[in-house]
């Protein structure tokens, strides 16, 4: 099981001068089927340490399925997922989370009745040692631990500039803000790999700009590797280092934004041939 991957690359330098590390995660010949439907067909790509990796493609291309494979929600019928140089066995999502992978969802999945603060606090769950009874008693170690976690959560609140909604129930927040809270919860887990499923869907231009800045800052400040799905091509091309393009479950392009934009298959998928 724990054999070293044979093609662990050494990384590369981006145009803006950031050093990207070696391979963090590698997807090898992944195929995912739901009954007779092939959602993902024989796809391979890698994610390097410290990069912002985008997965794009038209609706129904299999992007979210891919993300679900990475996060352990789906186990592919064929293919292997390699993480930090070892092959990952079939895992439950919480086990993947414990390995340092956190995510946000396309349709916001927050606790609507809980405050921003409490929602982000739930992101710390995998880091908490004290059990349920200990936390209920809230004495000694539990209290001390909560203070430590709260400190970390406050740093995230500060980072995402959401101080004003700290105590507001999430259900009362506008959509763009909820997206930000969800990002906050994912960050609270201090992930090594952050998966963002359409972080900018349904946002206006200003909210998109804010979110783009936060994604870049997360990458820059915490060194977090980010894999994201996004529809807005402008955003994708601006912020990502490398892009995987999917169409009908197949990979049709992979490379830097400039390379992908010049790829005829990609142009066809997006512009030339109608997919609707």
């Amino acid at each position, binding site marked *: 099981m724990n054999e070293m991957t044979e093609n662990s690359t050494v990384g590369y330098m981006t145009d803006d001068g950031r050093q990207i590390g070696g391979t963090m995660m590698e997807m090898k010949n992944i195929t995912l089927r739901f009954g007779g439907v092939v959602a993902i067909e024989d796809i391979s790509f890698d994610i390097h340490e410290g990069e912002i990796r985008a997965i794009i493609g038209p609706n129904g291309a299999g992007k979210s399925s891919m993300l679900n494979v990475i996060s352990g929600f789906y186990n592919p019928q064929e293919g292997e997922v390699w993480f930090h140089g070892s092959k990952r066995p079939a895992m439950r999502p919480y086990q993947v989370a414990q390995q340092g992978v956190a995510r946000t969802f396309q349709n916001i999945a927050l606790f609507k009745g809980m405050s921003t603060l409490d929602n982000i606090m739930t992101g710390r769950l995998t880091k908490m040692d004290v059990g349920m009874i200990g936390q209920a008693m809230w004495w000694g170690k539990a209290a001390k631990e909560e203070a430590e976690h709260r400190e970390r959560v406050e740093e995230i*609140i500060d980072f995402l*500039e959401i*101080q*004003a909604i700290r105590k507001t129930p999430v259900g009362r927040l506008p959509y763009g803000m909820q997206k930000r809270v969800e990002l906050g919860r994912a960050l609270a887990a201090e992930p090594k790999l952050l998966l963002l499923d359409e972080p900018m869907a349904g946002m206006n231009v200003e909210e998109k700009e804010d979110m783009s*800045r936060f994604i870049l800052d997360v990458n*820059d*400040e915490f060194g977090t590797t980010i894999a994201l799905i996004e529809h807005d091509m402008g955003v994708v091309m601006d912020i990502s280092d490398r892009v995987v393009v999917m169409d009908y479950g197949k990979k049709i392009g992979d490379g830097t934004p400039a390379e992908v934009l010049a790829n005829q298959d990609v142009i066809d998928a997006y512009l030339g041939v109608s997919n609707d």
Partner: protein
Amino acid sequence: MAQSNAALESIPALLARNAAMFGDKAAYREKEYGIWQRWNWGEVAGEVEALALGFLNLGIHEGDFVAIIGRNRPYFYWAMAAAQSVGAIPVPMYQEQNAEEMAYVLGHCGARFVVVEDQEQVDKVIDVQDELHQFEHMIYIDPRGLRKYDHRRMHQFSHIQEQGRAARDEFLPELKARIERLNLDSICVMLYTSGTTGKPKGVVLSNRNIITTAQNSCEFDNLGPGEDVLAYLPMAWVGDFIFSIGQAYWTGFCVNCPESPETMMTDLREIGPTYYFAPPRFFEGQLTSVMIRMEDSGRFKKWLFDKFMGVARKYGSDILAGKSVGLKGRISYALGNLFIYAPLKNTLGLSRVRVGYTAGEAIGPELFEFYRSLGINLKQLYGQTEATVYITQQPDNDVRSDTVGVPSPGVEVAIRDNGEVYYRSPGVFVEYYNNPDSTADTKDAEGWVATGDAGYFEKDTGQLRIIDRAKDVGKMADGGMFAPKFVENKLKFFPDILEVVVFGAGRDMCTAFVNIDLTAVGSWAERNNVAYASYQELAGHPEVYSTIAEHLEEVNKSVAQDEMLSGCQISRFLILHKELDADDGELTRTRKVRRKIIGEKYSDLIDALYSGKSEIYTETEVTYEDGRKGSITATLEIRDVPVVPVNQKVAAE
């Protein structure tokens, strides 16, 4: 305060005194990471010294300008004190300014150093730095997102402090020598006026201006080291400088900085300042939100609120002013305080306010009374940057909504023949930087400064009343004084009136154009089942006319009481068929009425107002938001309003 003033001739000297006298007392608080962080005066002295040493390490000269751009944070206040310590001059700037406006100010003062908050400001400065020949170093507080930037001219605030601490032995003698050289005539700060007319001007204020003014104003209101203020108004504004630096350093009180602009209301509640300033629109916003929430509350709560607010209106102001109030009134008020006023004040964050000020524009009497009747000592002051804020202010026991108080300590105020208010004080600014012509225009050889406002002193109370901008004040045909804004402000306090333009200069009576407030009148229409298809139709509705006529009649009664301006009662009016609009050039971008343009554009309507007609057909050009032009036509009704006859003798006076 019992202290020797001899050596306290600069902000750094005051800081040293505070560190020695109140070393352990809170000087600054800032909410960060959800908790109020606290620095005492001893710590502040250390922070400021470290930064000043860091400035020296970067090669700052005496007389250099240090621009400060950001929201209210302790670090910026320290940066100002540190700049002063090395003999440089802090120039706090508005953070919302765009890059070009910023470039003008930075270029005008030739700032060598710029202290900014974060990436947003860094980017703006980088955008314009090529135009700035003197600019050398930028110091930022928040490093986020800046890692990849070219750091040859950029430094992190904390790093500069570390370098300063490391080089303490080397630079401390120089720092001490520079602080020693500061005296009352050294420049303390330079503040740019907002520049509604033309380019911003740099107002140079000396240590004498700031320290004497701080001393006088603290004595006037008995401010001591125990006060808490919330620093939330722009640092570029003179008021923030005098409150958060001048008075804070003079008395040693604590300056509290909000976590972010959006959390200001929560932070206000948590701090509960004892000394507080807010512009009228702020109080208005607070009152509106209280009223909306009361409308939504349960019937019993609403009843209790209304009942006790009635009691407050009746007795509150008198109790606050220390006048005699009967036992019944006092008991009712005490009950009200228990059930309503105290919890309400707590919600508003005003429980502990001992001295509160509002200024900047006229405040509605009802609004003002609301806060006073709750037992909040809200007062008015009148001032400007060139005066280091204070020209007049209201003493505790003599507060009214329609005056701005008596001359502040040390200030002489004179009314010249044209009604314009002039003042002379220790706070009068040194000069406009690099602008001797403007300086000479504003300040005469004897040190008198023109305010540009017209006003007069009330005979019996000695309080100043500001009636209008001096250039707008005229005479009526009978020689009586004509001050349009005085009447307009009274009318605009009615929620259904959005804008009023009063005419009457050189005429024998006053007339007015009225703009209704679509939100307020629209909601009235909805409640009363009045159907309307357009603004124009609603504006011309007979019932709307009647309501506005009632307001005018009421205002006429109040204007008639004013011995100098009783001639300004409105005899005839019409409701305009369109809203006055900045796109049409009728208002400035800050929503001030442009009288001349309106007078020309609607000359047919003005003629009709003075001709005795009862209606007028008109065609008006309008500009749409996309710049296209169109025109609207309307037949407007003109109504007469009853005027209170005025004692002829007074009018002729």
